[in-house]
């Protein structure tokens, strides 16, 4: 049995599955239920200064649903905790005392003055919590007050506040990043310069889920008026994965501990974040949609997969995929694949054909010898993957790499050679082709 325990910037937990700072971690009642269900840790719902904020009493949440009303994207206009600071601190202390082995991180958001941060950090320390997370990510409401993503979008502020926090507490400091920026590496680098121990990402993405065409306002709305919210859930996972990878492979932030967040629902989602460098993961939407019990699937799934792969502890695979994330210019232009349709699995819906015919390379038949049949025309197939993506039957269409054979489309022999854009004759800026030296070409010279 694989060992799922983690030590993240000195914070120990029995497993890497933590609940993100959000409603599931807003009260002792919820957090204790989560711990009983098996979660490894929590980031307590963001605390602020008294008096507490006031939430709307209208709808706070919206969603986009996939088939079967699965929640694909979720959004909210909720603020930070609306309970008095004192109450939260007392509960944090009580829960941590009862659950010594679980990670208890406290999320914070106060006005951008050193005094404010210093004051709240001192109070959090008294709770014996394991660490703090600075919420520089909330993109609605709080940002209008100069907090949350208003800070996270300005690297100088990120660095400044991180530095204050490191000065005024002995607890590990995690900076939670907003995805509502052009280049996620900038705030991450700023956090590092400020001395932060780790970053966590992503917080929610600015969004309007739907427009109510009768009320002619965003949906959901508060009595006819709506505002943008923050989106999360499965739909944001790809955005979060990319941002995680960007930080993990950036020269400046490489090796900085990352807590991965965004759309994690299953063990597989979590393992993907971890392979891209996340030492722990945080979950909000999946818990809100399905309840705390999902962690059982996450733990057993991760453990079974690790056993299968021979990873005995989590650190054995964290970051393993990072070296394989590279820039487009270093991809091998000599590599080629062809789509291949498993005729036994094919249900003959024709989606692959029409996708390729109307919008791509006219490389799939719809009729062979007078019968409905979908076959790849290798002379036309560019190996783009569109057909495999649109096929409703998983693994029915696969992309098969050409190996020591002639690409029927280009007439070129595919023999395992390597040539990227920086070496390509069509590139006016190309350097001399460096034949076959794959390793040297994969990464830019340092």
């Amino acid at each position, binding site marked *: 049995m694989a060992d799922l325990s983690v030590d993240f910037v000195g914070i120990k937990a029995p497993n890497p599955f933590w609940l993100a700072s959000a409603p599931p971690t807003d009260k002792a009642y919820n957090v204790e239920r989560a711990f009983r269900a098996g979660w490894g840790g929590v980031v307590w719902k963001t605390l602020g200064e008294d008096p507490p904020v006031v939430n709307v009493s209208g709808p706070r949440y919206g969603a986009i649903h996939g088939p*079967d009303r*699965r929640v694909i994207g979720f959004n909210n206009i909720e603020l930070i905790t609306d309970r008095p600071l004192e109450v939260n601190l007392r509960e944090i202390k009580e829960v941590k005392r009862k659950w010594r082995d679980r990670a208890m991180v406290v999320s914070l958001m106060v006005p951008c003055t050193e005094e404010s941060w210093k004051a709240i950090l001192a109070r959090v320390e008294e709770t014996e919590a394991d660490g703090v997370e600075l919420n520089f990510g909330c993109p609605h409401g709080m940002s209008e007050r100069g907090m949350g993503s208003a800070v996270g979008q300005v690297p100088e502020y990120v660095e400044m506040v991180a530095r204050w926090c490191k000065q005024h507490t002995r607890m590990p400091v995690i900076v939670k990043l907003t995805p509502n920026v052009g280049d996620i590496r900038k705030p991450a680098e700023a956090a590092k310069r400020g001395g932060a121990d780790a970053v966590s990402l992503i917080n929610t993405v600015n969004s309007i889920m739907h427009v109510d065409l009768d009320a002619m306002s965003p949906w959901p709305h508060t009595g006819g008026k709506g505002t943008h919210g923050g989106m999360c859930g499965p739909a944001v996972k790809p955005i979060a994965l990319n941002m995680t990878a960007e930080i993990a492979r950036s020269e400046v932030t490489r090796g900085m501990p990352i807590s991965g967040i965004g759309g994690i629902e*299953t*063990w*597989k989602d979590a393992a993907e974040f971890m392979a891209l460098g996340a030492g722990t993961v945080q979950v909000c939407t999946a818990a809100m949609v*399905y*309840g705390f*019990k*999902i962690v*059982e*699937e996450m733990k*057993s*799934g991760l453990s*079974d*997969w690790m056993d299968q792969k021979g990873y005995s502890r989590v650190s054995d695979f964290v970051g393993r995929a990072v070296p394989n994330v590279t820039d487009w210019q270093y991809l091998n232009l000599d590599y080629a694949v062809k789509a291949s349709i498993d005729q036994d*699995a094919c249900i003959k819906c024709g989606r692959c054909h029409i996708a390729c015919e109307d919008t791509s390379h006219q490389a799939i038949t719809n009729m062979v010898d007078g019968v409905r049949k979908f076959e790849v025309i290798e002379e036309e197939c560019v190996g783009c993957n569109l057909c495999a993506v649109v096929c409703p*039957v*998983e*693994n*029915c269409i696969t992309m098969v790499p050409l190996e020591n054979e002639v690409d029927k489309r280009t007439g070129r022999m595919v023999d395992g050679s390597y040539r990227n854009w920086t070496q390509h004759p069509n590139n006016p800026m190309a350097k001399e082709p460096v034949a076959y030296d794959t390793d040297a070409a994969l990464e830019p010279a340092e």
Partner: protein
Amino acid sequence: MSTHPDISAGRLPAADIEAGFGDLHPALDRNEARVASERCLFCYDAPCIQACPTSIDIPLFIRQISTGNAEGAAKTILDANIFGGMCARVCPTETLCEEACVRMAEGKPVEIGRLQRYATDALFSTGRQLYRQGAATGARVAVVGAGPAGLSCAHKLATLGHTVDVYEARAKAGGLNEHGIAAYKTTDGFAQAEVDFVMGVGGITLHAGKRLGRDVTLAGLAAEYDAVFLGVGLQAVNALGIEENGLANIEDAVAFIERLRQTSDLASLPVGRKVIVVGGGMTAVDAAVQAKKLGAEEVTLVYRRGADAMPASKYEQEVALTNGVVIRHFARPYAVKGEGGVLASVLFMRTAIEAGKLVDTGETFELPADQLFKAIGQVFLPTDVADESAVLELEGGKIKVDAEGRTSLPKVWAGGDCTRGKDLTVVAVEDGKQAALSIDRALAARMPVAAE
């Protein structure tokens, strides 16, 4: 004109017989399993779990399938029900988990049974063993009967560290999984492979061919072991209550099915041209359908009440009808006729419900028959477990047990068909599991606590 009686083997080409006895529910492939699993809503306090006698965590195992962890799903299933593979094949899901599934509101439940099969098949195909005997407690338990009740009890006891001796009257373990369940529900020797997996936990010794009441006695076992579990099932078939005149070709349906399950060549198994089955339960349906699949030309199932009252589920009745079995309701046999010592026809009396009671209408009919199978229920015979020094209390003709499976004797537990209950595999498995847990608690209370 055919000669009478017309009973012969190979009524159909061997290939047709083989095809007929193929899987009733073909296995789901990966893609089908993914689509089916994605329909599960991961309900809170899921009604399907409540409807499963073994309380398998259905939403969890289905979620595990949907995340590509079919073997993890199998573990979730087997932790609750060690015969989860067989139950996936034989449970009347339409009256258990799937009936309770909230998606029945749309008329189509999540295909829990087939998903369970998918997960357990995935595990068994790897040959991996998931369980091993727990740290030895030194306690020894005797289990009588190697059916689902007895083996489920033995397995749980072994994982808890007890040593188990299983006494089985037949030559093979498995009980009705091996000798009773319809062949098209458990194909390719699955029953025996599953028994091997269950026994593979270690710490269980099978004593095959050892019959309680003949080779060992209850008092003897109770004296020799720390506890005894009785899972002996049912031994006899209810009589039709008519004079059979010693005619040949009148037989218990369970005996016919047992012969069928144990033959290696179905094409060599004789069956009548005209077959009559009397009864309305699962056994009746299984006998009728299998007779048809062997090539019987006319199979008539005669039941004394209406379709709604039939113990066989709607689905089972449908299986009978689609296989060409004719079902006649509201009739009971009152006499048989023979020619030269063999069965020639069965005489039926029409029945009706009057003022809530089943009555004869006086109208009769006669059906020619080469073979008659009796399937009007099985009964428990207490002779084997009766012991001069140890008298087991009965209740409703079966061994009396409390909620944990304790009998009237201090060291003796019982479960499965020989006790109250539903005569379902899954219920037998749960009985065995609960009795094992109860035995474990009793043994723990009796043993000195090891110093820590």
